């Protein structure tokens, strides 16, 4: 099994890789090579910073097309933080920016009245059961750092819900596309379990 963490110049790649390592998932590597990423059995799209910069880097690196092609081919994808936000059709951060559109919806700023960015631990509930959260109890806390949130057109993709000013999507799934707004690599043992769950999803898809 071979999971590629996409290096498109945005993100805490080594932290994510070490997270998978600690979770006991083997074969996880960081790559900026489109051919290697395209050959992987699973793809992780990390991301830190602004939507616009991330979207631009993803396009310029050639990884945008890799992600779209491989997702269409059924390869499991895990988006983390800005990697989740990029799945939206449009990002509304300092303008209007095209996203991957894998989860129809927009990426919008957290509401006024709460401290932004949302930094720290927050508890996640599950509107539906999902393989990504297998073995993780409702009400477990995960570590968030973000100023924007994904607002899907159709709430049925939300597999994890959190509240900060407003209730919003902490995790989404559409077919083989999974994504989390929080940082599982910074979320102690439950975060590692989630990474292990993604590893299992990839493994089952591969054999």
């Amino acid at each position, binding site marked *: 099994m071979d999971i590629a963490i996409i290096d498109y110049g945005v993100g805490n790649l080594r932290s994510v890789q070490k997270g998978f390592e600690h979770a006991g998932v083997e074969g996880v590597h960081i790559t900026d090579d489109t051919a290697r990423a395209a050959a992987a059995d699973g793809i992780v799209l990390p991301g830190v910073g602004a939507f616009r910069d991330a979207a631009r880097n993803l396009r310029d690196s050639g990884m945008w097309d890799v992600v779209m092609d491989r997702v269409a081919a059924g390869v499991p994808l895990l988006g983390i933080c800005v990697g989740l936000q990029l799945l939206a059709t449009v990002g509304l951060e300092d303008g209007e920016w095209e996203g991957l559109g894998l989860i129809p919806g927009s990426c919008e700023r957290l509401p006024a009245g709460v401290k932004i960015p949302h*930094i720290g631990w927050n508890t996640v509930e599950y509107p539906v059961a999902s393989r990504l959260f297998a073995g993780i109890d409702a009400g477990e806390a995960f570590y968030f750092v973000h100023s924007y949130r994904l607002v899907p057109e159709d709430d049925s993709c939300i597999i994890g819900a959190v509240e900060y000013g407003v209730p919003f999507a902490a995790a989404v799934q559409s077919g083989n596309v999974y994504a989390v707004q929080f*940082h599982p690599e910074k979320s102690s043992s439950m975060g590692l379990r989630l990474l292990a769950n993604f590893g299992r999803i990839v493994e089952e898809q591969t054999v």
Partner: protein
Amino acid sequence: MKIFPAIDILDGKAVRLSQGRLDAVTVYNDDPVDQARIWADGGAEWIHVVDLDGAVVGEPQNIDIIERIAAAVDVPIEVGGGIRSMETLDRLCQAGVQRCVLGTTLVTRPELVAEACAKYDGIVAGIDARHGKVAIEGWRQGTEYGVLELVRELELLGIKRVAYTDIAQDGMQQGTNYGAYRALIDQVDIPIIASGGVGSLADIEDLLSIGPRIEGVIVGRALYEKAFTLPQAIAAGRREGGA
């Protein structure tokens, strides 16, 4: 790998401390601006300035001197010590400072760190550690934070570089905590400026051998004590195989 000659300001003078102790002060130049000119004449590409009075009080005390340094030399300057608010950051940037080093704030006010990184490119996380645990408040207070744990959070807040000082080595000229730097770059993505303990050109070469993600090294006492000259240090930092 860039060499950052240091100027630590205490009571208006350029000093060095041993292991960060305010009772172990050596005064090297009564005029920090003159010292900045000496480093600039020696070919410095950066000057690292610490407002020690500011670090103790939690608010810069020597902005006038820093402003004069920025006006006196063409070399970009990096400043730390007591920066705990956006107003202070704004003042320093207006005073001609290229990079500001945040310390205590990294632990106590992550929102300010995120805001600062969104506003300015030149925000540096100044992490001072004793036995791998982060110290704050002018090194007087220990925390339970491990260096790696903190750096991982800072990456998420938008921090683009870390100046990592090993307090036990600082001002001792007995070699750097080479292993700690090597271990850290394997775990995180952002580059590191090493600090504390450089006593010889060999120490600079050791850091260089770790690779280009050791972006620079802050050198203090060894330069003041003339263990080697600044041009020699700069040349050592540029040797083959390094950054």
